[in-house]
């Protein structure tokens, strides 16, 4: 069974972002970029399925400009067998694409590639939308297992453990299905130098929205980006007694 893993290029999670002074966007000039942490977990899960003999092939896909090939190479170095680059003019942001447009492109690719399972991150750490997987499942009318921290792949069904508000929920989804990963599904492997060398020889196929026959829907327009209200924190207290006094004065205890 083939597993398709959409991966997104995002700002590295350790970087503290700054809003541009004209409030048009955040400043992404010269910041470190990486594969979205949730997508990395999805790639790891897919590669383990192949290593366990439950999946036959892992295909990574990314939507974006040429630079997203870097993240596809990361996925290949982790063990994906091949990659597909869906080229859009610049970043999805500047191309005006939102999760719906991305999901429409992915849906067209799923129809071509016919994977048994599509594994996505539950959320990207830049847009924080948490939508793409659910939209993809909706467009394809596939069952969906979101926010999963456990995954058992069978021949006809996939069993998932979902992290939900009140605890955990276990579902069996008939294949083909869409699954989105939560943090506790696994710890992605460390990439070694030979893996990077090997990844260079793996193929990255190129396609584009027109080739997939999709005119993706424009996303909502971002009118402005502002920094959040600053917090006036930083005050120190010297003892538990002083702390209690302040809390009483503030009438919170």
């Amino acid at each position, binding site marked *: 069974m083939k597993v398709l893993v959409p991966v997104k290029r995002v700002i590295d999670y350790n970087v*503290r*972002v700054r*809003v541009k002074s004209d409030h048009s966007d*955040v400043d992404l000039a010269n910041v470190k970029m990486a594969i979205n942490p949730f997508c990395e977990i999805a790639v790891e899960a897919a590669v383990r399925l192949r290593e366990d003999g439950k999946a036959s092939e892992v295909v990574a896909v990314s939507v974006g400009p040429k630079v997203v090939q870097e993240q596809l190479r990361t996925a290949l170095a982790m063990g994906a067998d091949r990659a597909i680059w869906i080229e859009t003019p610049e970043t999805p942001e500047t191309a005006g694409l939102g*999760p*719906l447009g991305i999901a429409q492109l992915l849906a067209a690719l799923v129809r071509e590639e016919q994977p048994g399972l599509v594994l996505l991150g*539950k959320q990207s*750490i*830049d847009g*924080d*939308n*948490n939508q793409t997987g*659910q*939209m993809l*499942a*909706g*467009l394809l009318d*596939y*069952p*969906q297992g979101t*926010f999963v*921290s456990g995954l058992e792949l069978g021949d006809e069904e996939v*069993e998932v453990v*979902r*992290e*939900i*508000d*009140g*605890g*955990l*929920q*276990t*579902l*069996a989804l*008939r294949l083909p*299905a869409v699954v989105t990963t939560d*943090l*506790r599904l696994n710890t992605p492997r460390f990439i070694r130098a030979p893996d990077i060398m090997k990844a260079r020889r793996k193929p990255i196929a190129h396609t584009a929205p027109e080739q997939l026959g999709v005119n993706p*829907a424009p*996303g*909502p*327009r*971002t009118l*402005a*980006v502002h*920094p*959040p209200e600053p*917090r006036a*924190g*930083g*005050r*120190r*207290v*010297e003892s*538990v007694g002083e*702390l209690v006094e*302040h*809390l009483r004065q503030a009438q*919170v*205890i």
Partner: protein
Amino acid sequence: MMRSLVIADLDKGQLAAATYHVIEAARQLGAPCDLLVVGEGCADAVTRACAIAGIERVLVADDPVYAASLAENLAPLVVAVSAGYSHLLAAAGSVGKDLMPRVAARLGVNQLSEVIGVESSSRFRRPIYAGNAIATVESDDPVKVLTVRQTAFAAVEPRGGDAERVELEQVIEAPSTRLLGEQRAESERPELTSARVVVSGGRGLGSREGFELVYQLADRLEAAVGASRAAVDAGFVANDLQVGQTGKVVAPELYIALGVSGAIQHLAGMKDSKVVVAINKDPDAPIFQVADYGLVADLFEAVPELIEQI
């Protein structure tokens, strides 16, 4: 004509607190508002829903097929009743996040996540980059599909209304998805996202036994318990207590962080709290930058003392 439909958030068949906050967001749109209650055994929730001031109609779908709140059958149900609505809203909890993108995709429109401000019927504010930036976004879609961050809106009055009750006849199955089980945390403590006081513990608690200290302080303050990702990953507590960018977002009157360093992903989930207290032995821990009252101390000494003094 504008008209909003709020999908009620249920907790064990009861109307969850989040619902009242989402209705406030809908109220700010300035349009008439209906409520959809879907689940199993939700008679009590429906009675309460009908009593909420400002709700005109309560649509009811009470059937065992909806017990697990699966997007696979909730989405077609919402789509089926969506005609005539300009806005569909749900709380940004695990059900709303699972459901609303699927609804939007079926309707061929975008979805806006974690809305924290309503500027007009088509213009909203939402956090991006773990809350390090706030985007103002506008949607031209004929139907706006939103998830709402409950902590950003006040709760509406639970009483004073007299909504009409409308039973939905159609029952939609989810044949491709089977529920195998649920492990729900049973707790007498207040619910994390709506509690007045939250006590959170991090890796600094050291162990599951060490984490008992968090519970003791929480009991003393009648507080909810939260945790950092590190504390959840280490198995000190269950996943549903994680606060942060990828966990729950809280904004209580008082947030006490014990042995939490204050990574940006954690701050994303608590920095709108009114008063923040941090106890940490590392004077350079970033949590102190957002804390109104920071105490540099070993928590195993300071917390028992704190419990004694309050």
